C-alpha cells in the first residue's frame, strides 16, 4: 500500500464500511439529536417563509437604499458552497487527483443541497415571488419575453442548468453504488428502491465502459459550468454602476471565492462524516492536508483580489470609489470588514504549518471561520455599496431583522437536515471508486 489516501483493507470491507450504515442502521441518540435540531431549524425557515409571503419583504431589514439584503447574500454564499462539490468531482476527476474518491460523493450531495437552497433565495427575495416563472422564456399570451440584457436572466439560466447538471452528475456517480446496496439489501422494500435507482446495473464491462465515457464527458461539461455559474453571479453586481460593484475583476474573483467557501464546507462535512461513520481509514489526515493546501491557495488568491480592488479604487482616481474603500476600513461596517479580512486572508495562513494542516480540530476551526468570513464578504459587497451610494442624501445603514436571521439559520438547518437524511439512505462515499483506487494501488 503506497497511497496515504487509501485504507489497507480488502475491497469487501470497504463496501461493508460504507454500505452498512445505510442498510443496517445503528444510529444512536446523536443522529436523532442532530436530526431534531436540524428539523427545528428547518421549521424556523418554513415559518419565516410563511411570514414573508404573508407580510411582504418588508419583514426584512431592506430599505429604499439598502434595497438588497440577506437574501441575496445568502444566495451568493450558498451557490458558492454549491460550487466545490462539482469542482472536486469534475475538476479533480479530469486532473486525475486520486484522493477525491472518498470525499466526492458527499461533496456532490453538498453541491446539490446548497445549490437548491441557493436557488430558493432569489425567489424568496422577490416582491411578488409567485411570479418568478416570468424569468423563463415561455410562450406568453402577450408575446412577452424576459429581458435578455439583465444579469438576473443570465443568473436564472446559470442556476437552473447548474442545478440540473449537479443532480445528474451526482446520480450518475452513485449508480454503481446503488447497485451494491441493492445486492446487499436484506428486505424486499430496500431491494425494490435501490434496484430501481440502480437502473439495472449489472457490473458488466460494457456497463463500465459506457458509464466511464458518460461520466467523463459530464465532468468535462461540469468544469466550465462551475466557472460560468459563479461568473454570472459576479456579473449581477459587476454589470451595475454602483461604486464597489462595477469592477471587471468580479467574475473570476467570485469563482475563486466560491471555490474557497465550498472547499471550507467540504472540510467541515468531511470531519463530520469521518466522525459519524467511524471511517478515519477512508478520510485520512492526508485528505485534510491536501484540502488545507487548496484553502491556503484560495486564501492567497482572495487576498490578491482584495488588494486589486483597493489598488484600482486608488488608481481610478474616482472619488466615490476611493471613498467606498476608505469606508470599508473605517466606516460603520468596518468591524465586519476587518473580521472578514482576518477570516479570509490572515487565519488561513496558519496552513503553511504542516502540523496544523494535519490537525483535525485546527482544520475544522479554520474552515468554519473561512465560511463565516465568506458570508461576511457577501453581505458586505451588498451593504457597503448600497449604504454608501453616489448621493450622500440617500445614505442609510442596513439593519437586519429577526426574520433575516431566521431565514439564514433556517437554511443552515435545512442543509444539515438534508445531510442527516442523506447519510441514512445513500452511501456517503463512492464505494466503487474507492475500491478501484485500492485495486490500482495494489501491485
Amino acid at each position, binding site marked *: 500500500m503506497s497511497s496515504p489516501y487509501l485504507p489497507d483493507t480488502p475491497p469487501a470491507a470497504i463496501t461493508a464500511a460504507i454500505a452498512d450504515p445505510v442498510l443496517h442502521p445503528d444510529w444512536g441518540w446523536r443522529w436523532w439529536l442532530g436530526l431534531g435540531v436540524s428539523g427545528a431549524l428547518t421549521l424556523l425557515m418554513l415559518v419565516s417563509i410563511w411570514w414573508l409571503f404573508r*407580510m*411582504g*419583504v*418588508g419583514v426584512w*431589514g*431592506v*430599505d*429604499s*437604499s*439598502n*434595497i*438588497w439584503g440577506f437574501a441575496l447574500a445568502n444566495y451568493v454564499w450558498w451557490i458558492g458552497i454549491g460550487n466545490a462539490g462539482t469542482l472536486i468531482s469534475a475538476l479533480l476527476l479530469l486532473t486525475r487527483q486520486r484522493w477525491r474518491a472518498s470525499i466526492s460523493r458527499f461533496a456532490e450531495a453538498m453541491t446539490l443541497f446548497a445549490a437548491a437552497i441557493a436557488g430558493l433565495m*432569489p425567489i424568496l*427575495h*422577490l*416582491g*411578488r*415571488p409567485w*411570479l*418568478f416563472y*416570468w*424569468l423563463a422564456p415561455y410562450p406568453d399570451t402577450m408575446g*412577452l*419575453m*424576459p*429581458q435578455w*440584457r*439583465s*444579469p*438576473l*436572466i443570465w443568473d*436564472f439560466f446559470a442556476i437552473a442548468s447548474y442545478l440540473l447538471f449537479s443532480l445528474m452528475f451526482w446520480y450518475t456517480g452513485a449508480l454503481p453504488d446503488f447497485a451494491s446496496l441493492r445486492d446487499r439489501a436484506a428486505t424486499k422494500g430496500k431491494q425494490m428502491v435501490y434496484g430501481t435507482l440502480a437502473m439495472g446495473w449489472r457490473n458488466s464491462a460494457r456497463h463500465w465502459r459506457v458509464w466511464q465515457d458518460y461520466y467523463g464527458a459530464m465532468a468535462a461539461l461540469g468544469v466550465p459550468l462551475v466557472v460560468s455559474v459563479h461568473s454570472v453571479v459576479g456579473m*449581477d453586481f459587476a*454589470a*451595475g*454602476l*454602483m461604486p464597489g460593484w462595477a469592477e471587471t475583476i468580479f467574475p473570476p474573483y467570485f469563482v475563486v471565492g466560491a471555490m474557497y467557501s465550498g472547499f471550507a464546507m467540504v472540510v467541515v462535512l468531511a470531519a463530520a462524516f469521518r466522525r459519524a461513520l467511524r471511517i478515519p481509514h477512508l478520510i485520512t489526515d492526508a485528505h485534510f492536508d491536501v484540502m488545507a493546501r487548496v484553502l491556503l491557495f484560495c486564501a492567497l488568491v482572495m487576498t490578491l483580489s482584495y488588494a486589486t480592488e483597493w489598488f484600482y479604487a486608488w488608481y481610478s482616481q474616482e*472619488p*466615490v470609489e476611493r*471613498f467606498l474603500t476608505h469606508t470599508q476600513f473605517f466606516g460603520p461596517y468596518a468591524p465586519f470588514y476587518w473580521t472578514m479580512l482576518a477570516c479570509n486572508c490572515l487565519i488561513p495562513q496558519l496552513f503553511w504549518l504542516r502540523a496544523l494542516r494535519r490537525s483535525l480540530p485546527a482544520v475544522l476551526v479554520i474552515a468554519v471561520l473561512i465560511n463565516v468570513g465568506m458570508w461576511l464578504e457577501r453581505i458586505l459587497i451588498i451593504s457597503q455599496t*448600497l449604504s454608501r*451610494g*453616489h*448621493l*450622500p*442624501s*440617500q*445614505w*442609510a445603514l442596513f439593519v437586519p431583522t429577526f426574520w433575516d436571521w431566521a431565514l439564514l439559520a433556517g437554511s443552515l438547518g435545512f442543509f444539515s437536515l438534508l445531510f442527516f437524511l442523506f447519510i441514512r439512505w445513500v452511501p456517503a462515499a463512492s464505494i466503487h471508486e474507492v475500491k478501484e483506487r485500492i485495486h490500482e494501488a495494489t501491485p
Partner: protein
Amino acid sequence: MTGEVTRRGALRLFSAGAAALVAGCRPSREAIVPYRDMPEGLVPGQPVFFATSLPLGGAGRGVLVESHEGRPTKIHGNPGHPASLGATDVFAEGAVLDLFDPNRSTVPRRDGLPVGWPALEAALAGLEEGVAILTGPVGSPTLARQLRALVDGGAQWFMSQPQRPALAFDGVQLWPDFTRAGRVISLGADPLGPGPGQIALARGWTEARQAGMRSLTFEPQPTLTGAASDRRAAVKPSDLPRVAAALAGQTQDAPQEALAAARALQPGDMVLPGPDLTAEAQALVARLNARLNAPLRHLRPFWDWDGLTPGTPDDLAAAMERGDISALVVIGCNPVYEHGTEFADLMRALPVSFHFGTALDETAEAATWHGPLHHPLEDWSDLRGIDGTVGTQQPLIAPLHQSRSAHQVMEMIAGNPPGNALEVVQATWREAWGEDFDTRWRRALHDGVIDGTGPEEIAPQVPIATPPQSGDGFEVSILPSPSVYDGSFAGNAWLQECPQPFTKQVWGNAVLIAPADAARLGVETGDPVELGGDETITGPAIVSALQAEGCVGLHAGYGRQAAGPIGTGVGFRVAGLGGRVTLRKTGGSAALTRTQTHFDPKGRDIVKTVPTRQTQAAPDEPDPPTLYPDFAYPDTAWGMVIDTDACIGCNACVIACQSENNIPVVGAEEVAKDRNMHWLRVDTYELPQGGNVFQPVPCMHCEKAPCEPVCPVEASVHDSEGLNVQVYNRCIGTRFCQANCPYKVRRFNFFDYAGGETVPDQGSDLLAALRNPDVSVRARGVMEKCTYCVQRISSARIAARKDGRGIGGDEVVTACQAACPTQAISFGNLADRAAAVTQAKADARHYALLGHLGTRPRTTYLARVLPENGEDKA
C-alpha cells in the same frame, strides 16, 4: 350612528355631490337625482375644476379644485388669486386628505355622546347674557358681519391666533415689494416660511432675485428665508436688536455681517423686522425703512375689521375666572391645545360650553357640546387673502357628515334658524353690490376672486411685538411647523410625513442646538434633552450648524393630545415654554425619524453653485460612450429642468406629487427604516462655504437608464417620448432597478402601503375617494417611481390629437411644476426649441446630476447663485 362611513354610503354621497354641483353649484340637501340627462359640460372621466379658497391661519389662498365625478381629488393654485398666483403650498395640497379624513367629526355630541342638531340648536337658542365667542383669526367678511351682529347683541368676541403670518403684527401687515428692493435684510422675519403669504412672497422674492436683488438674513434658527438668502448669519433673538442698531448706524458692537451691511445700505434697500425685535428696535427699523424709502407697504391685516375688536385669549381666561362668562362658544379653533389644559379646566367650570370644529380635538373634549363643522371644501364662504383680496369659497362636494357651516352656527347663536350658508354669504354681497349682484356673483364664483377687493393700505405704523424675555439659560426661538403649521394639520398623514426642510425630520419635532452648545453639554443628535422653562418638555436633539449659539430652535404644532390616530402624541408641545429655558441631557431615547441624515456633499459634484447669474457656460463635456444605440425622437422628447437657485425648499412639490400620484404614507416606523414612498424628494446639502442648497430629486428619466437593462422582466422600459416608465403589472420585485439607480429615486412597496397596512385608518374606504382615477394604485411587492405625470401627458396628447395638432412644448404641466411657488421647475418638450425647458437647458448654469456616469438624465438642474461673501463683484 357609529361614525363609520361605509363604502356604499360614501359613494351615495359622492354621487349626490356630483349631481348637485353640476346641476347648479348648490350644496345638496335637496333631492338626489341620477343623470337621466347628462348635465351640460360634464364628460364622465373628465375632471372639472372649481375655484374656491382655502384658509391657512384664517387667511385665504385661492385654489382650483379638480373634481372627478363629484370627488375633489387634487388642489391646484388659482392663477387669478394674488395669494396663490397659480401655485400652492403643502397645506393647500393636503386639504383633500383632510376632507376625506376618516377621523373627522361626524355628528353633534353632548358630553361625548351623539345627539342631533335640533338638541344643539335648542341649547344655543337658550343662551342668555354673558356669551363669549372664541374664534380663530376671522378672514371672512360674512363671518365678520355675523360677528358684528352678535357683538351688537351683547356677545363678547375673542380671537385666538397661535401663529401670526410672516411680517404681520398687531394692527399692521407689512407687505414688501421685493422686485423694487435693491437689498433685503431680514431680522428674524421669515417671509418665505410657511404661512398664508408664503406663495406670493416667495414668487416676488424669486423674481426679484433673478433681477439682481441681494439678500442677507439674521435669524436664530434656520428658515427658508435664510436658506434662500445670499448670506445668512445665525444670531440669537436677544442679539437681533443690536443688529438693528448696527444697521441704523447706532452701534459698532454687532456681528461683522451687520456692520458690513450697514455700510452698504442704499436707498431702496429694505429691512424686514421679525417678531423677536424689541419695541425700540422695531421703531429703529421703521425709521430706517422710511429713510431708505424701502418698498414696504403697510396693509390692513386680514383679520382686522372695522368696528370689531376682539379680546385676546388671556382676556377670555381672565373673564372666565372672574365668572363674567356664562357660556363659551368656540368656533373653528383649538384653544385647549393652544393655551394649555388650564383653559380646559376653565371651560369645564362654565355652566355650558360649545365647540364647533371639523374634528374632535382637545377643545371638543373639554366642551359640553360639540358640533361638526364643514370642511372648507364642503362649505360656502368668502375669505380675505393675506393681502386683503377676498376670494370666494364654494363647496366641491355635499357634506360627507352631519356637519354645518360656521355661518349657520353664527345664525344659531343669534337665535335664528340655521338657514343656508349660501344665502348668508350672498346676503353680504347682495348688500354690497345691489343691482349687479347676479352677474358679479356668478363671475366671482367662476374666478374665485371678488373683484374690487384688494390690498388696503393704512397709515405707516411701528409694529408692536413681544420681545423675548431676558434672564439666564437658552433663548427660545419658535417657528410654525413647516409640516403641520400651528398643529391644525396634525391629523394629516401627508403633512406629518412631509420632511422638515433642514433636518428632514418627519412625524415629530426636535430641539435644534448649535454645535458649540452641544459639545459643551455633551449632547449629540438623537439624544433626548429636557427643556425647563415655564413648563418642562422632553424631545430629541438635533445638532445643527445653522442654529445660533445660546438659543434652541423649536417648531410649534406638535404634541397634540387629541388629533386622531395620526396626530395624537406625535412630537412635543412648545407653547407655554417661556422665553428662556435650561437644557439638560436626559437618559433614554427619543423618536427622531428623518428621511436624510447626511448633509455634507463629501466633496462630490452634486450641487453646483456659481458666483454670478451671468456666468460663462462651462464647455459641455461629451457624454461617456455607450454600447447601446441612441433612440430617435422625431417629435417629442420630454425633459425637466429644476432651478436650484429658485427652489426655496418649501415641499409644495412633494405633497403635490403625493396627491396627484396616489402616493401612500408609510408611517413613522417605516420612514425610520428608510422606506418613505415620496416619488419626489428634496435633498438638502450644507455647503462648505456656508449656506444650504435644496435639490428636488424626481426620477431623472435617464436616456441611458441604468434601471432598464437590469430588469429581468422588462418592467422598466423606455418609451417613444423618452420617458423611463415602470410597468407595475409586469414588475415582480427583484429591486435590481433601484439597486442600480445611482439617484435612488425608485420606491418599493415593501408592504401593502396603499392599503394602509402600516398607518392607522389609511386603508379606509373613505380615503379611496380622493385617489386620482388616472393613476394606478400600486400593490405590494412592486417598484414605483416618478412618471413625469404621464397621465397628464396622455390627456394632453388626447386633446392634441382631437384637434389634429402636436402637443405644445409647454402644454404639459407636471404636478410638482404647477405647485411650485417660485416656478423653479420647467418641464416640456425638448424637441421644441421654443419650449421653456429647452431654453433652460441652454442656460449657462445648467448641469446634470452625476452626469459623469453616462446616464444622460432628462431631469437636469440650474446651479445656485451664491455671490462670494454675499457681495456682487460688479
